[in-house]
């Protein structure tokens, strides 16, 4: 037995080391890191290594930074005054622009609160220097020089001015590990800005980015911006992610496609990043002040604009001006008003007033009480005096026409009534949008009248020739053998003359 161990000592040590690590791997793989009971042990091991490795890195980084500062801060200062002045102006402009955007954001926030959304806005960020990497192309991680003592916490989003970078994974007292979005194990909720297609951004092999499992859509074009959706509860909504680079089929989930993404931030050359430490809908005092200034300036500009507009346009209606009898003459060839506009006066009393119609018990079946829709003629009312004959023009689409009597008064004639269809009475304007027949008559030998009846129906027009005996011909129509339909009066045409006792047709 002793010879066995001594003979295979090396192999046994190897097996022991491998088995121990395999067991450790199995434990870590079985329990997620956040729920693991031995998380403290794992963190301790990482902490020991990071504590040994990162101080030299910080030292190296600080040394390089010192040399860089020496060069850029004391030697390479050409044009710095001019650049400073330009930057100050840029800051002022950006502050106003930011205030304007903050106003819009506030409005959008109110609306989203109304809709039940909870929107987070970046309120506080902490700048951090990148001091190291994970050291492996399989593990896309970075190390920054800020840790828990600087307020860092797990899952805090890390960004740059260009776009998102990743999130904090492990936080040590003076150092934090950033899991880049290019890592295959990361996931970010994103939206394609133009097509509004949602997806999950994941890392691809060799540090590429992709939005996985997207339904094929021909609208997805290269160059389309991609922003965060806020659905991952890590990144605030609307941060730039990158642009669409290409669309490739997903080999594992046919027919879905993967959208390859060109990251907005330069993830391979990061030196400084911003860690978002607070997401809040509150604004800083400076932002509140800028917002107030912007609002005051906006009101002043609106007031100036309204004053200029008031000088250029006719503003008020002059009550003493003469009535507007011909509005077209008040406008020149270019459409500009020549005189102050006056309110038009009604040419007839209002018949739409409440209680203007009689009770239902007094109404007669088949008789309309409402005025015609498109004509200018109004219907007679039994309790009201008849309208003068000058208004007797067109009938209505309801099939009514007016019969002009020798006395000058008019009575309604309904197209469905026998008097309107059989008798060749003169129907004034009956052919206009009317179901009532229009007639054309000529006197036959013997006193009878051969009448050509044109009936405009709702769908088609029919022509009939009817011969009537002299006993059925009214006196009014016998005097006028032919009557042509009258076109519908135009609202702009001058008022019609009263109908003649013979029928009012010319």
């Amino acid at each position: 037995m002793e010879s066995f161990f001594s003979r295979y000592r090396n192999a046994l040590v190897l097996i022991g080391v491998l088995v121990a690590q395999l067991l450790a791997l199995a434990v870590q793989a079985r329990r997620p890191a956040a729920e693991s009971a031995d998380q403290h042990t794992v963190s301790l091991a990482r902490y020991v290594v990071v504590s040994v490795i990162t101080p030299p890195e910080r030292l190296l980084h600080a040394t390089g930074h010192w040399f860089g500062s020496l060069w850029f801060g004391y030697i390479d200062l050409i044009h710095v005054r001019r650049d400073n002045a330009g930057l100050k102006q840029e800051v002022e402009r950006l502050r106003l622009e930011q205030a304007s955007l903050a106003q819009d954001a506030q409005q959008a926030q109110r609306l989203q609160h109304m809709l039940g959304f909870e929107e987070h806005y970046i309120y506080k960020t902490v700048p951090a220097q990148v001091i190291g990497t994970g050291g492996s192309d399989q593990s896309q991680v970075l190390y920054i020089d800020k840790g828990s003592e600087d307020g860092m916490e797990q899952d805090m989003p890390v960004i740059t001015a260009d776009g998102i970078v990743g999130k904090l994974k492990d936080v040590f007292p003076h150092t934090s590990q950033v899991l880049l979005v290019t890592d295959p194990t990361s996931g970010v909720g994103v939206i394609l800005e133009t097509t509004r297609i949602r997806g999950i951004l994941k890392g691809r092999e060799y540090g590429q980015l992709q939005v996985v499992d997207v339904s094929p859509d021909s609208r997805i074009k290269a160059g389309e911006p991609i922003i965060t959706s806020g659905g991952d509860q890590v990144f605030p909504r609307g941060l730039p992610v990158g642009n669409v680079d290409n669309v490739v089929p997903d080999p594992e989930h046919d027919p879905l496609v993967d959208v390859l993404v060109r990251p907005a931030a330069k993830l391979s050359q990061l030196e400084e990043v911003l860690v978002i430490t607070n997401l809040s809908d509150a604004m800083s005092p400076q932002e509140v002040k800028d917002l107030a200034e912007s609002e005051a300036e906006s009101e002043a500009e609106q007031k100036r604009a309204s004053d200029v507009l008031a000088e250029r346009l006719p503003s008020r209606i002059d009550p003493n001006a003469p009535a507007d009898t011909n509005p077209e003459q008040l406008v020149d060839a270019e459409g500009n008003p020549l005189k102050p506009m006056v309110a038009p006066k009604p040419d007839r009393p209002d018949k739409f007033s409440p209680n203007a119609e009689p009770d239902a018990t007094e109404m007669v079946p088949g008789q309309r009480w409402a005025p015609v829709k498109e004509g200018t003629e109004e219907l007679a009312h039994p309790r009201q005096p008849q309208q003068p004959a000058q208004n007797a023009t067109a009938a209505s689409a309801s099939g009514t026409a007016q019969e002009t009597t020798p006395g000058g008064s008019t009575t309604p004639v309904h197209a469905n009534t026998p008097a309107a269809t059989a008798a060749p009475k003169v129907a004034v304007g009956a052919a206009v949008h009317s179901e009532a027949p229009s007639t054309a008559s000529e006197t036959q030998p013997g006193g009878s009248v051969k009448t050509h009846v044109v009936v405009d129906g709702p769908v088609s027009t029919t022509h009939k020739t009817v011969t009537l005996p002299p006993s059925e011909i009214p006196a009014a129509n016998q005097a006028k053998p032919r009557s042509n339909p009258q076109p519908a009066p135009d609202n702009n045409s001058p008022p019609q003359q009263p109908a003649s006792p013979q029928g009012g047709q010319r």
Partner: protein
Amino acid sequence: MALMASSRREADTQSFPFLVYVLTPLLALGLQSFVPLHFPHFAVLDLPLLVVIYFASTLRAPIGATIGGALLGLAQDALTHQPLGVFGIAKAFIGYLAASLGVRIDTESIGTRLMLTFIFVMLNDAIDWILVRHLLAEPIAWGWIYQILRAAINTLVAIILFALLDRLKSRE
């Protein structure tokens, strides 16, 4: 090219100053973590693996190489976000193989170093891929062209690195 150890000198175990045992792995880890910040393609190298191969094949102590490889691999794991043990297992196995082969073959010739380093880098990546892909069920890429290029680059760098480390030997 003499592959097998043909003389006592070639088969002798060699030693280094104590600081070399401590500082070389730390420096390898530090450079591996720091340099890719400014030269992203530097991540294609695996300096800790090269250090394990060199010390294992030079010292020819399988147990020490196994444990040393495991510790260096665990330290490398600690710098990443993946579970501890992936690099530890791979480098422990590579250290054991390199030390076992170092007893039998001449590991100081350039040809042997080229061939062994290339094979060990490929084997290390294969073990990593198997562990991550099948034990941890996490996505990891394997491209033959990329892996061969990576192994070739590491081999070329290893020739220079091994020559530098040879100068630190303390021969008795």
